[in-house]
């Protein structure tokens, strides 16, 4: 009797823990996987190799981008085709504000830890402008508007040579003096988790419902009392803010920025592919896909050096196949598997 009671309490505590986790947007399995990734680089010498750590950084960077991208594409249903340009804008702003070299015309010399936030705010401001520009546009028109704005931003950065050195590229200061990559991994990993939790909390609230309603049918949403302007502007600004923050990380991690490697439309397409293969409107799908994906792709890149660009072809093909045959992506697959499992093993607690 008493033993069953403690078991009951145990399950109670467990379910409380699970419900607390799910409020933050984690499932127990997801949390375990994240913890594994977090301790991976300190666990064994194999994972401490510089290139593995760099892959992990790349994975977390892509994952965080796909979360911020999916926040617009998966909820409001507008594909932000200028996402990479917004990210690059944040990166350049932060890079210029923290500049202390004589190579470009201004040298405010702020600490990168401060300038990264200013870069994010500037990117958020551009996202705000983009939202205002796309207010009247839907679907393809909004995507094209974002694309045009991205092209214009990239052209602008290319032309302001006194500030950005244009296509030659600039070299922002790094976050840390050390050449060790490990601290950078934890910075970007923390950013990824932070962005995920914040965006998940936003979409868990009534905002998420409003976003989905706007994404599915604007007129119906308006008829049921949702003010689309407010939500659209909020969504774009927040997504662009985080894009700018990640751009700042890129600037102060790699220490080298050129418009074409950062802001080109093909960079948006890479993020789009990860977010879509991960599953639209799930936020976590992109994170789940990004790590194995980056590893697979970097493996291809380093082992088939005689076939440059093979990984990008596979990227595109995978995206096409997923879009035609399995549009729900990885998160849709997990949801499907979950319902099947629940049907196989019905929960006893319910009865």
């Amino acid at each position, binding site marked *: 009797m008493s033993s069953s009671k403690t078991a009951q309490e145990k399950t109670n505590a467990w379910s409380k823990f699970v419900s607390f986790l799910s409020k933050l947007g984690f499932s127990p399995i997801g949390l375990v996987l994240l913890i594994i990734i977090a301790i991976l680089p300190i666990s064994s010498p194999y994972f401490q190799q510089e290139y593995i750590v760099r892959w992990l950084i790349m994975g977390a960077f892509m994952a965080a981008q796909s979360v911020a991208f999916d926040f617009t594409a998966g909820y409001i*249903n507008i*594909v932000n085709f200028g996402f990479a340009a917004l990210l690059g804008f944040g990166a350049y702003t932060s890079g210029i504000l923290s500049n202390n070299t004589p190579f470009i015309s201004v040298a405010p010399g702020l600490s990168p830890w401060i300038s990264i936030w200013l870069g994010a705010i500037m990117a958020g401001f551009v996202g705000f402008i983009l939202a205002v*520009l796309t207010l*009247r*546009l*839907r*679907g*393809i*028109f909004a*995507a*094209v*508007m974002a*694309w*045009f*704005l991205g*092209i*214009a931003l*990239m*052209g*602008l950065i*290319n*032309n302001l040579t006194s500030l950005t050195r244009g296509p030659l590229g600039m070299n922002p200061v790094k976050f840390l003096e050390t050449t060790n990559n490990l601290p950078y991994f934890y910075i970007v990993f923390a950013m990824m988790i932070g962005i995920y939790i914040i965006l998940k909390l936003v979409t868990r609230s009534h905002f998420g419902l409003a976003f989905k309603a706007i994404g599915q*049918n*604007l007129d119906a949403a308006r008829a049921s009392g949702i003010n689309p302007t407010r939500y659209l502007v909020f969504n774009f600004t927040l997504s662009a803010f985080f894009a700018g923050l990640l751009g700042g990380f890129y600037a102060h991690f790699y220490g080298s920025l050129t418009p074409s490697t950062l802001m080109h*439309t*093909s960079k948006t*397409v890479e993020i*789009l*592919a990860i977010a*879509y293969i991960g599953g639209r409107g799930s936020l976590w799908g992109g994170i789940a896909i990004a790590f194995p994906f980056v590893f697979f792709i970097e493996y291809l890149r380093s082992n088939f050096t005689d*076939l*440059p*660009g*093979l990984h*990008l*072809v596979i*990227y*595109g*093909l995978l*995206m*096409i196949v997923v*879009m*035609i*045959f399995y*549009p729900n992506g990885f998160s849709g697959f997990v949801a499907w598997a979950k319902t099947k499992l629940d049907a196989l093993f019905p929960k006893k607690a319910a009865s």
Partner: protein
Amino acid sequence: MAKDSITRPATQESLMTRIKDNLPIIIVSVFSIILFAAVYIKGGTSQIFNVFITGGMWALLAVGLALVFGVMNIPHFAHGESFMVGAYVAYFTFNPIREYLQQNPSKFIGIIAPFGAILVAGLAGAVLGVIIERGIFAPLRHRTKEGWVMNAFLLTVGISFVLTNGANLVLGPNFRGVPRYWDVDAVEIAGAYMSVDRLIAFGVSMLTIGVLWFFLRRTRIGRAIRAVSQDETGAQLVGINLNFIQTLTFSLATAMAAISGASLLFLFQAYPTVGATPLYYAWYVVMMAGLGNVAGAIIGGFIVALLQTSTQLFVAVSWTTVIPTAVMILVLLLAPSGIFGSDVKGVQEQ
């Protein structure tokens, strides 16, 4: 858009409402005339020719884009890659002939060969179009029509990605080009020297557009294409084979992009990402003219070329992407369905 179809009594239509209804067209016309005059004063006839020649090419590309959107509702993002394929095919067809000609000069082959290369490129483009339509869009159409415009758009993004990187993988990033197609001196027209290649490229684009126009207006299949663009269900009811028309339209558009890539080989050369710039400009044109508006795309091509040339002339060459893009953002903001309007079904679909 719908306002055109409302018939009002002619007497009640005051001048003011007429101006109001056509405000975007009037603004753009006035603006174009001023720019045109400015370009003539600053750059002379050679710049005017430049506008027409580039305009012809953007028009040819944009017509394909407009056709695909009008008939199939696909916002085609891989149009630039058809351009790239055309350029490559023309290079690999023409270059052996050119090398052969250097050893055994022959005037006749020298004149004919470039046309042959352009034609081969067009055929290759048509085949590519059939493969893409049958292999990618037909299965998607089969599965679901829900959210078609956006899904089709993202698919073409994927196709563009695959083709660009595939070309990079197979052929490498090197530039392959020919210095010129026809080994003839530039000709003088109205005080400006124009290379024969440019003149013929303009001729090819105008001829292709003309043939397409005739095909759409005067032949049975062309009428069927227009019928499908107006009403898919109605077209099916009168016995039009929808699958055939859609495949044909897509392959026509791809072929046109390939022809323009082939005839501009001397200007652009062939490399994996060559399609990006033509794609931007073709999109500027269709966004300005109205998505799916084929006739508007022809005029729009010249307006965009005018904008581009005047930016080069009055600002700087490096600003040629920024300023036209900024103007297009304004157009998109003030007249989302284009200055000439667009009555294609599904344009306002979410």
